[in-house]
């Protein structure tokens, strides 16, 4: 059973390596974030498998820490996207107020 669990942990780690390709290649920021998310959950699964195989109690504590902080990067990403969008639409509004030639009316602003 120990050998099986270790092989399973390696298999999950291999899929993590696959998700790494998505982080590196993108192309959009969302793709990179989703790759990171998959690596996080894959890491949790690999930890649990290897920890159970080696009968280490503390691995599930480490996995708990990882699991509770898993959504943090996504929250930060949402804030990042919203902040840059807001800044761009504010600048666009200022530009239109200044009477830039050929300016289209603002589109709602998300």
């Amino acid at each position, binding site marked *: 059973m*120990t*050998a099986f669990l*270790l*092989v399973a*942990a*390696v298999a999950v*780690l*291999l899929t993590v*390596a696959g998700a*790494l390709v998505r*982080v*590196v290649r*993108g192309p959009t*920021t969302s793709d*990179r*974030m989703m*790759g*990171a998310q998959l*690596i*996080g959950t894959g*890491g949790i699964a*690999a*930890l649990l498998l*290897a*920890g159970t195989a080696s009968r*280490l*109690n*503390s*691995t599930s*504590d*480490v996995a*708990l*820490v*990882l699991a*509770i*902080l898993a*959504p*943090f*990067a996504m*929250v*930060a*990403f*949402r*804030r*990042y996207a*919203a*902040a*840059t969008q*807001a*800044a*761009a639409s504010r*600048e666009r509004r*200022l*530009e239109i107020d200044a009477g830039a030639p050929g300016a289209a009316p603002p589109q709602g602003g998300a």
Partner: protein
Amino acid sequence: MIPALERAVELAIGAMLVGLALWSVLVRPRFASIVGFVVFGLLLMLAWMRLGAPDVAMTEGAIGSGLAGFLLLSAAARLRCSEIRRARIGAGEPQRARDRSPRRSSIVALGVGCAAVAAALAAAVAALPHPAPSLAPAALERLPELGIGNPVSGVLIGFRALDTLVEKIVLVVALVGVWGLAAEASWRRAPSVDPSPEIEPIRFLARALPPVGIVLAIYLLWRGATEPGGAFPAGAILAAMAVLVLAAGLGRLPPTAARSLRLAICAGPLVFLGVGGLGMGVARGFLDYPAGFEVLSIKLIEVLLTGSVAVVLLLLVAGPPEEAASANGMRRPEPPL
């Protein structure tokens, strides 16, 4: 079969770590580089587990990829917002901005310097005698005197208490440094983590997660005496929960002038110093815990340190107080319809 498998896992994790580190240093877009750093933290956590260091893995996960990822993305948002502003103001402005960026020659010099430091470190590690000299057996042998089962906690709060004490004071000094960036007008005002504009899912998370996080922090603190855990990961998780609540707009930080806030920042180091000083009177010296009260002293210090670590980390993420929250480019929450 199993040793070969373990060697393969070690090689795979090591290769991914080195590759990812190189990629996040070399990749051009700032955002990609930050995501690379966050993933690097996750993989590093697996490496620490493989090395049998769950305490370090926990702290790496909580600080390295949790709080630091949040901090870096907030910083990147801010930079991008000011770049967008500059882009509107005129074509001349970005030109000057590009001139301000470091010269190619200084970048090369920096790279060579970093490579030299890395090479020197590698040489030093390679030159270590095998097996490396270690105080671990001596520390383990005397661990029962502290009444603590987890060797990492024993070393941190017992044998190397001075290091830990200074480390906590460094945290407070770092916060003073961050607050020193405040503008004159906003000094003594409240720092803030600006609420996210699209807040529904984040609000839900900020209501559902903190109760679990608080229980987990108490559990880690409690278990820290006998199993991996302890004050630092517990404090980091508490700080992360508080950041979440602030980002959802469900709470607000007190002004930096508030006495209670300053007390919370200093409580841990002060009690640590106090108990340590007490040792000079009733025990054999500074930071020697009174005989018979070792466990009690250590618990008291750890509980207060957890609180202080949580508050300091939260304030480090929130940054210096600012005059107007909109100044850093985050939108204020829209008024409810």
